[in-house]
């Protein structure tokens, strides 16, 4: 068993375990901490795929920026444990089970699928560097890149307007 396979199992099982932890913890802070672990596990998986730039970005953007925001909001609202609904078999539980069943069916399809490329491309290591991503980002994807900056500005203004208190 090579190092890549061992790390895949380590990070993969860690990612699944922390994902289950996120959606089962009653306390929102515990769920958030589980999600941070989940993001680190995904960054590790990106590293097994030799996408080192995106692995760092995953930690910076998700575990760094987004989760700080989430934890901050949880702290601001001072939430307690989530109480379960009184009904045992609510519509949402049935829906959740149905969606789980549908997506698990996809696993069966995937087991039978035979992708044309089963193993990492030899070019993979050079694709994951900041150099090659920057090259594509500032040439082929220049317009989407500028559009994203506009989107982030709009989100920034929208968030401020939504979150500020009304001044009479």
């Amino acid at each position, binding site marked *: 068993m090579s190092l890549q*396979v061992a790390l895949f199992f380590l990070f993969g099982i860690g990612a699944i375990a922390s994902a289950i932890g996120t959606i089962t913890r009653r306390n929102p802070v515990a769920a958030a901490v589980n999600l941070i672990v989940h993001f680190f596990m995904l960054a590790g998986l990106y590293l097994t795929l030799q996408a080192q730039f995106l692995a760092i970005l995953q930690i910076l953007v998700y575990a760094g920026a987004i989760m700080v*925001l989430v934890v901050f909001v949880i702290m601001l609202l001072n939430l307690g444990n989530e109480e379960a609904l009184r009904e045992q078999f609510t519509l949402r539980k049935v829906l959740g089970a149905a969606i789980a069943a549908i997506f698990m069916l996809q696993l069966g399809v995937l087991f039978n699928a035979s992708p044309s490329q089963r193993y990492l491309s030899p070019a993979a290591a050079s694709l994951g560097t900041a150099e090659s991503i920057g090259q594509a980002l500032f040439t082929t994807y220049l317009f989407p890149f500028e559009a994203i900056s506009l989107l982030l500005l709009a*989100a920034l203004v929208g968030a401020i307007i939504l979150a500020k208190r009304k001044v009479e």
Partner: protein
Amino acid sequence: MNLHAVPFEWYLILAAVLFTIGAVGVVTRRNAIVVFMAIEMMLNSVNLVFISAAQFLGDINGQLFVLFVMAVAAGEAAIGLAIVLALFRNKRTVYVDEVNVLKW
């Protein structure tokens, strides 16, 4: 089974499992912030598919898509949490089943 390298399907299966967990979280949780975190989890599982496709097929485009998904997710986080804050300020609740102002 050859265990010297991880085949493509394993990454896809792992991503499908993570997406499933996220989807179940979205429909089973009441707390809007936890629902939001489950949505982030689903976005991340799609990112994993994009990156593994890019690296297995030797095509950079998948990684660029992940970059854009991350930017949109960051914007979504700011807006979504601002909505939760505004909701809590007006209704004193973050439980999605107690919010029915749009229900006629």
